[in-house]
């Protein structure tokens, strides 16, 4: 039983280490907030332009008047719409490009150009074409996510083992069977990493869109707060944004865990 003693020791060490790291992570945050508050109180920084933790907390209390939940709801809806649309449409396009080598070759230069284009430059065009409002914001989010989705999903498809394709072909498999039996299941891990990237990009697109056109949403609150010099509002909205983005990322991580469990 010496062995299991050693193992228990190992586990304990591992757990202790984990706790230590978590404690330090929380410590860094607390220290940061503490110093921020302290410097604001003793006047090293001007809390009118830098805000301070206590002012942000006060702002949370006051936010009720700003219909904060309406703003959160609108931003989350836009973000989820942008995320879902770009993931679905992007994956379908990637499948089409995998299917047809000719199509892939034709569209390749366009993808490269669109990928390197800063999508924000399209803002004015989007507003004119789809109108200012939620549609424009979702379009912006989709534009930012979709090219990356197409390129990464397609690369995942193309990295499938040639030998496995050969094996299926020798059994008489057609293209559709190769897609269903090999390419799609093989690409699931890659697809999940694409989802994780898209969560981040969808937020970028949504907030950018809101900066451009919106009359509601967290991005709007931030812009508005900046214009009327209410830095507490800007900071509070930013904190809420951080929390929302983390929650959405965690949702994807949970999906990943579920799938991994199923596959193992």
């Amino acid at each position, binding site marked *: 039983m010496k062995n299991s003693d050693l193992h228990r020791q190992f586990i304990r060490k591992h757990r202790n280490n984990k706790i230590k790291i978590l404690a330090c992570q929380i410590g860094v945050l607390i220290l940061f907030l503490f110093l921020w508050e302290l410097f604001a109180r003793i006047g090293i920084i001007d809390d009118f332009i830098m805000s301070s933790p206590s002012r942000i907390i006060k702002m949370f209390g006051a936010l009720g008047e700003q219909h904060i939940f309406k703003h959160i709801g609108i931003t989350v809806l836009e973000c989820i719409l942008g995320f879902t649309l770009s993931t679905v449409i992007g994956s379908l396009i990637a499948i089409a490009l995998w299917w047809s080598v000719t199509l892939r070759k034709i569209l390749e230069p366009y993808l490269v150009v669109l990928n390197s284009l800063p999508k924000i430059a399209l803002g004015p065009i989007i507003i004119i074409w789809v109108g200012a409002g939620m549609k424009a914001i979702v379009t912006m989010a989709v534009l930012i996510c979709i090219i990356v989705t197409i390129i990464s999903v397609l690369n995942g498809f193309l990295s499938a*083992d040639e*030998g*496995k394709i*050969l*094996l*299926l*072909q*020798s*059994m*008489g*498999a057609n293209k559709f*069977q190769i897609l269903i*039996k*090999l390419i799609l*299941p*093989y690409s*699931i891990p890659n697809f999940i990493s694409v989802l994780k990237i898209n969560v981040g990009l969808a937020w970028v697109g949504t907030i950018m869109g809101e900066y451009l056109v919106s009359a509601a949403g967290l991005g709007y609150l931030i812009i508005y707060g900046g214009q009327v010099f209410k830095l507490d509002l800007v900071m509070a909205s930013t904190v809420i944004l951080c929390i929302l983005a983390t929650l959405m990322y965690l949702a994807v991580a949970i999906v990943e865990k579920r799938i991994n469990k199923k*596959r*193992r």
Partner: protein
Amino acid sequence: MEKLKMKDVSLTYQSLSGETKALEDITFSVSDGEFIAIVGPSGCGKTTILSLVSGLIAPSEGEIFINGEPVRKPNGKVGYMLQRDQLFEWRTIESNVILGLEICKKATRENKEYARELLEKYGLGDFKKSFPNELSGGMRQRAALIRTLSFRPEILLLDEAFSALDFQTRLAVCDDVYDIIKKEKKTALLVTHDISEAVSMADKIIVLSQRPAKIKNIYTPDLPVVSPLKRREEPTFSKWFDIIWKEVSK
């Protein structure tokens, strides 16, 4: 009965940088239940022969017949075993083994039962629900073989099927695979650059030249039909090894 026939087959690969003549006038036939080995230097065109037999590519000249019918495209008549076992990591062993049945749309209850029986018969019954990464290299190769057997192909094609394994495992897996192929009375075409592997397993050995591959000679060693390991201990084994080796390197 003649299972496979290649008649005056030539093959030239086309590419932008030019033409590569890989095969020239290949003619041979394989009868039912025979175990044929094709040996030749690397890059001479061995894999090309298997691609032709499986219908993945069409010959530039000549024709190929399986059971007297010309081969036009892949149709599930051959079971291909590649260098790496190519098991699908996300499928259980059981589900890997019925892959061919699914592709050929023959995944009936009887056929799946047959695949399961093969797993039981060859000692993988306890690993039905396991994933490939839980099996040893030898067991994975055996699962790959059962996958090719489960849809009852006319011919098994083995392309350097053991060369990714370490020496010790390779000897054992050769024995294993040979035993199963003989028990199931399958016709097999083994491609290898390992002469001792060819001599230890085959009834007939076809020696190919450098590219473009032509048949230099066909040998029928007078070795007993026993397991590959036992064959390696036969007094005449090294004689045959020498003969083939000289022919290949000549």
